[in-house]
């Protein structure tokens, strides 16, 4: 909306300071309202709602008649839309928003096609096969797209696939250790994060948005904290031998985000990652020493200590002290 004009907050502030009487309040609100922008907002919302209804109606129509459509028809229908979408995307060019949006749609349709194929022919493949095959098939598009949404989609699918593999083939059959797999997933994400930061510093404009890198950093820290909590919550003290893995991951994240040039978002994630890790360690140590109500009070003390120190570090970073 127009920044030069009075905003709703300004009107509210004037009313609070008694600079605006009750009679002129509504007129001031209407003057502050950016009528053209809100008209466009309403019209766009109407269009989006109408298209969503129509699209949902078409999808529901196919769902209702799904059994009646022959297998070849089902795969041909999705495959046809997929090919048209991908070709249109390449024809429009990947330097245009429409081209990139169509390539993302085509990448999603690859997954839909694989899911339908699996449903029709009952291939017996595990769920992680679907996600990992999906990533492999769209990988060339991801590389040429130079689009962060495509990368986020591919990485999400890869992590989801690896997680499902960890659960189904590793945890259930005992062929490998959960913690080893989790370490591999953390290393993979950390590697991508380091590459992304490196490419951004080399001037790759499409990597400029902060959110995909912050999201990946959050995933790295989340995996490290989850692993640390699982190790520390385990009754088997021998598990502690794996604690260096999340510790080193968080240390590498710190190394990556300590330079100021890499922004505050990754630094914030890193600080909170450490706060959770250190709280989990302190709680484990305390649980060995105290129990009952003193434990609850000690728990509160740990929380206050870690949250206050995290806030202190973040504030110090913002002020340029560290």
């Amino acid at each position, binding site marked *: 909306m127009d920044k030069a004009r009075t905003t709703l907050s300004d009107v509210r502030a004037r009313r609070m300071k008694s600079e605006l009487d009750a009679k002129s309040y509504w007129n001031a609100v209407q003057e502050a309202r950016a009528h053209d922008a809100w008209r466009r907002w309403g019209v766009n919302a109407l269009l989006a709602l109408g298209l969503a209804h129509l699209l949902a109606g078409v999808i529901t129509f196919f769902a209702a008649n799904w059994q009646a459509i022959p297998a070849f028809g089902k795969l041909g229908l999705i495959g046809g839309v997929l090919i048209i979408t991908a070709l249109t995307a390449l024809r429009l060019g990947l330097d245009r928003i429409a081209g990139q949006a169509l390539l993302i749609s085509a990448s999603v349709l690859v997954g839909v096609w694989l899911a339908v194929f699996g449903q029709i022919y009952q291939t017996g493949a595990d769920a992680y096969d679907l996600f990992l095959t999906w990533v492999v098939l769209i990988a060339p598009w991801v590389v040429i797209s130079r689009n962060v949404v495509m990368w986020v989609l591919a990485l999400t699918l890869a992590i989801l696939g690896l997680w499902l593999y960890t659960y189904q083939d590793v945890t259930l059959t005992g062929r490998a250790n959960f913690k080893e797999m989790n370490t591999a997933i953390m290393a993979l994400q950390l590697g991508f994060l380091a590459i992304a930061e490196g490419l951004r510093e080399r001037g790759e404009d499409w990597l400029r948005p902060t959110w995909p890198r912050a999201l990946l950093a959050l995933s790295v820290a989340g995996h490290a904290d989850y692993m640390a909590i699982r190790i520390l919550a385990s009754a088997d003290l021998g598990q502690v031998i794996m604690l260096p893995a999340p510790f080193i991951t968080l240390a590498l994240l710190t190394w990556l985000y300590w330079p100021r040039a890499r922004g505050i978002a990754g630094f914030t994630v890193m600080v909170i990652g450490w706060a959770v890790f250190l709280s989990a360690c302190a709680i484990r140590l305390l649980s060995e020493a105290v129990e009952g109500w003193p434990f609850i009070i000690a728990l509160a003390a740990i929380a206050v200590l870690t949250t206050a120190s995290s*806030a202190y570090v973040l504030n110090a970073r913002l002020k340029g002290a560290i």
Partner: protein
Amino acid sequence: MMENRPWYIAASLSILAWIAGLLTTAAIGVAAREILGLADGLTFSILGGVVTVLGLIATRQIKAVFLQEACTAVILGGAFAIVFGIHAEFGMDMAALTSLAVAAVLYPLVNANTLRFVLVSMALILTGLALENHLQTYAFDVIALVSLPLGAAFTLLPPPKVDARPLSLALLLATPVLSGISFGTRAVTQGGGVLTLMGLALLLGVLILMRRHIRLSVLIALSLSAAVAAWALPAGGTAALLILALGWTKGDRALAIIGAIVTGYFLTRYYGEVDLSLLHKSFMLCAVGLALLATWALTTRGGRVR
């Protein structure tokens, strides 16, 4: 100050501070119970009162944002202790009345809108639970009949010296939240004729406020759509549309986004639960979609926004 920080830093600091504040209050409660032996509800309420007052004094004295936020959480912890102490001692009716009184007293005294919103929401939830004991399923209708017009009034009327947004938002959200979550499967059909008519009247009233900015044909099309939606959707859905309309009319982006999200939830749930075959649902969705696109075409006259 908070406003100068990126939103994720402000949010992180607030969450950290609230964790610290709430756990400090919990630790005070545990210590009072275990060390001082204060076990009965009334004493717990008095302790809650003391914590609240201390929190209020601290928020006025302390300038550091983190500590201010932590003290805000301490006030909330104290308010919870007051209300739940009363609940343990005197039951739900008194707890609901106390929560209303606590919200009314603390609302103008505190500066944090999050705290104001939580206090009003707590009062509304406990009032709903207390009414449910007496009126059973009609409790929802009573709350909706009172909270919706009040919420709309507080949104549109000039605010008093205190920021009324948390109060109006909590009042407006009470109906969709109770309709969508707390009252289970009754949600889709609940809200009798009176509630439907009231929701529709409020919705039309808000649309009429915009008559100077909308063409008559579009106003009629939107009013007809509102009437169909109010007839088909549960009371929570009509309330969601009212929030959306209020946000749009007032030019309040946050309110409009909340309204759009809640409306999306009720529409999805409605289509999911409506008792029709998949084929008939598809016809219905296509028909509604075409009607909406026709309204869009009418509004834009062939795609150009006027």
